[in-house]
Every structure is written in structure tokens, then in C-alpha cells.
């Protein structure tokens, strides 16, 4: 469903959703969210681990 092409003739960018910048922006936001979420989860884990030492 996400393919951006219907034929290999004269094809250029052929990756999924290449013809849909909105979808690519949403994916980019999702990727950014994952990185931020990772760091957030590490902060939470660290705080919990350090609290156990008190």
C-alpha cells in the first residue's frame, strides 16, 4: 500500500511513500519521538536505580 511506483519504467525515487511528503514527515516525527523516548526512558531508569541507593 505504501509503494510510490506502479512501474519500473523511468523510475527515480522508488521507496515507500516517496510520493507523499506528509507521510515522510510523520515518519520523521515518529523517528524523532523514538530517540527522545529512548533518552527519556534512560533518565527514568537511572532515577529509579539511583533512588534505590538512598
Amino acid at each position: 500500500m505504501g509503494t510510490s511506483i506502479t512501474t519500473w519504467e523511468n523510475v527515480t525515487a522508488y521507496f515507500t511513500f516517496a510520493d507523499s511528503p506528509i507521510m515522510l514527515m510523520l515518519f520523521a516525527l515518529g523517528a524523532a519521538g523514538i530517540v527522545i523516548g529512548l533518552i527519556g526512558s534512560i533518565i527514568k531508569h537511572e532515577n529509579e536505580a539511583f533512588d534505590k541507593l538512598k
Partner: protein
Amino acid sequence: MDETTLTLESLQAQLAAQQSTFDMHQAMNVEVFYWWCTAIMMMIHAGFLAYEMGASRSKNALAAGIKNILALAVIIPTFYLFGWWIYNAFPGGLIPTNASSALPWAASMGPDVSDMGTGIFWAAFALFGATTGSILSGAVIERIRVSAFLILTVFLGSAIWILAGAWGWHPEGWLLTDLGYHDVGASGVVHAVAGFFTLGVLINLGARKGKFINGVAQTIAPHSLPMTLIGLMMIIFGFFGFLGGCIIFNGGETGWTTIYNTPTNLSAFAFNTLMGFSGGIIGCYIATRDPFWTMSGGLVGIISVAAGLDLYSPTLAFIIAVCMGFAAVWFAKFLEKRGIDDAVGAVAVHGFTGFVAVILVGVFAGGTPNMGDNPEISFLGQTLAAVIMALLGFIPGYGLSLLLKKLNALRVPESAEDLGIDEVELLAKPYPESNTPASTDSDVPNKLANVEPQGI
């Protein structure tokens, strides 16, 4: 062959077909070259992994390692999201130009039959960025919070260094067009920037507990010096990918050029990389007689000549590297006497050496012309650019780490530092079946007792 078929039109058609095949294979060769450069650069990170784990005490070995692994994992996507755009948008300074084709939703930022360059260059630059993160990583071991390190490394690896890259490592970068900047092997844009960013962080992070007693530096010995030596040699191996990624493989008749479009070739890089490597080892060995610094000298040597890798006579490169081996050790001592605990000497090896390396190009290769209207290489231009690189690294490193410190999010608590970050945060031990204490009583005299730390 039937002569009647050899018309002018048919010959032209055959020539066009052969030219098309040649062009395609040339484009594929470019991709192949940078693909393997990127792969070899991964060895830098394997090396940093071993080197930093070895440099840590065993109670923090895994924390040092996980930091390296996660640094790669966050720099690669963030470099995709905004790093590549920064490189393309900011060659003129701090005001962005249109670089929409480098945004993460552009058609060229994904599989594209008509674009055989963007992905492979993005990959090489992403790995350059990861190298800056690794430079920071070693210096801050055994007391930084992993989360704080990752925040800092995203800024350094996906924003700060690549801004320096846009200014000084881009055909239209203002340091080139205004100052004639020359830094082919990234002594300034990677090593000086990352080293001075690290210095800014170290000032706010503080020393490891026990490093200074009554102001006197103490030895905190690596738990595995052999692992650090092997790791450093792996980094040297990876440098061949790194430096290969610094040369431009052009299509057409141009052949190899520097990133500034001046002629060069891999032979030039080979002469001076190896002569610099050798010289740095000799300089650091004579200065310290210490294994860790001797092997670090290989890095010092390469970085000290990297900026002028295409221009130096090999014997001059060797002499520069020997001298910089001494100078880097001196700078490490200088920092330590001022209470800076740089666990692996990263500021001296990368920051200081990279900074001086940029200036040395002005000293020894001043007057060398650049292409087009760009000014020639000059001592003044190189010195100004070196200062800019140092400040571009130091100011955000200091500012961001100060903010994290104010938020109490920079450093692990003292109790965690005492127990070891592995046990507290990772719930793991590097050597769970080992019952051998790190030091044992022995009748053999300990020659290393009561000597200066790390031989410096």
C-alpha cells in the same frame, strides 16, 4: 565483422552505449569506495568500545561500553533527521540557505535510482559524527549519566561538528571562501571541535571520585590495559576508512580531489598517514615510556598531519607527528594540573592536536593556492579558523553540560560511583565468574607504584 554495418551512426550508437556503461560503472565505483570507507569506519567504534571499556575500572566497564553502543544508535537517526540538512544549509554561517533536498522527507533521502551519491555520502558523514561522539565518550567515563552523555553526543555528533563541517569542509563553506581554510583530514572540523566540546563538558562534570586528593592527581589504572591497546589499534585501522572518506572520488576525467576541489590522490594520503602514525608513536613513547600513551601516539600523529595530509612532504609529516607526540603529553599534564580529569587524554589527543594541526598547515603550506576565487592558504586564516573550531566546540559543550548540571542530570550520584555504574544501572557484571581481585599482594616489586598517572 561485416563492414557494411559500420556506418557512422552505428559507431556513434556503440560509443554512446559504451559511454553510458562506463558512466554507470564509474558511479558504482564511487558508491563502492565510500561503502567500504564507511564499513572500515565502523572499526573506529569497535576500537573505542574496547578502548574505553579497558580504560574503565571493571565496575564501570559495561557502562562505558553501553555508552558507545547507544551513541551510534542515536547519532545515526538524528544525523538523518537534521545533521545532513545542517551540512547543506549552513555553509554561509548561521543563516540557513535552501537545502530542502537534504530534509528527511526529500525524495533524495531514500532509495532513488537516479541518485547514487546522497546516501553513501550521508553514511560516511554520519560515521564522522559518531566519531565525535566517541571522542567525548572516553573522557567522561565512570561518572557521567548515560542519558546526559546521549543528549550531549546528539548535539555534538549531529549538530555541532557538522556545522563546523559546513563552514570548513564544504566547497562553499565560508571558512574556505573567506579565509582559504585547509583541513583535508578533518583535524579541525572533527577532532578540534570534539576535543574542545569535551573540555567544556569535563569542566562541569568534574573529576572521578578519588582522582585528586588534596589537589594531587592520583592514578586510576585501567582495568585492562591490553584491551585499551588493542582498541586503539582498531581505531587506527578505522582511520583508513575515515581518511578515505575525506577524499573526493570524482566522476569524469577529474579523478581524486580534496574536499576543496584541489588535486590530490590516495598515494599522498598513504605517505603522510603512515609517517604521521609512526612519528606520533615515537614522540609519545619517548615522552612517557607508557604503553597507553605510546599507542595513543599513533592517533596523535595521524591527527597532527591530517589537516595537511595532501600537502606535506612525508618526512615533514613524520617530524611534525613526533613533536606533536611530545606536545600532546605536555598538554595532558597541563590539564591535569588544573584539575581536569580526562580519563583517556581525549582533549589533548583530539582537541589540542587538531587545533595545532590546523595552524601548522598555515605555517608549512602557507601560500598554497586554492581553486577559483578562494584565497590561498595562510597562517592567519588557519589560525583564525582553528580558534573558531575550538570555540565552536567549547561553547556549546560547556553551556549544555552546565544546563544539565543545574538540572542535576549530568553526573551519577556518589553512591553509584562508589558501587560502580554497572551494578547500579545495568544490573550486570563484566566478569561474573572472576574471583581474582584487581590487585594482590606479591613478593615481586611493583615498579609502577608511586609513579605519575598513565605515565604523564
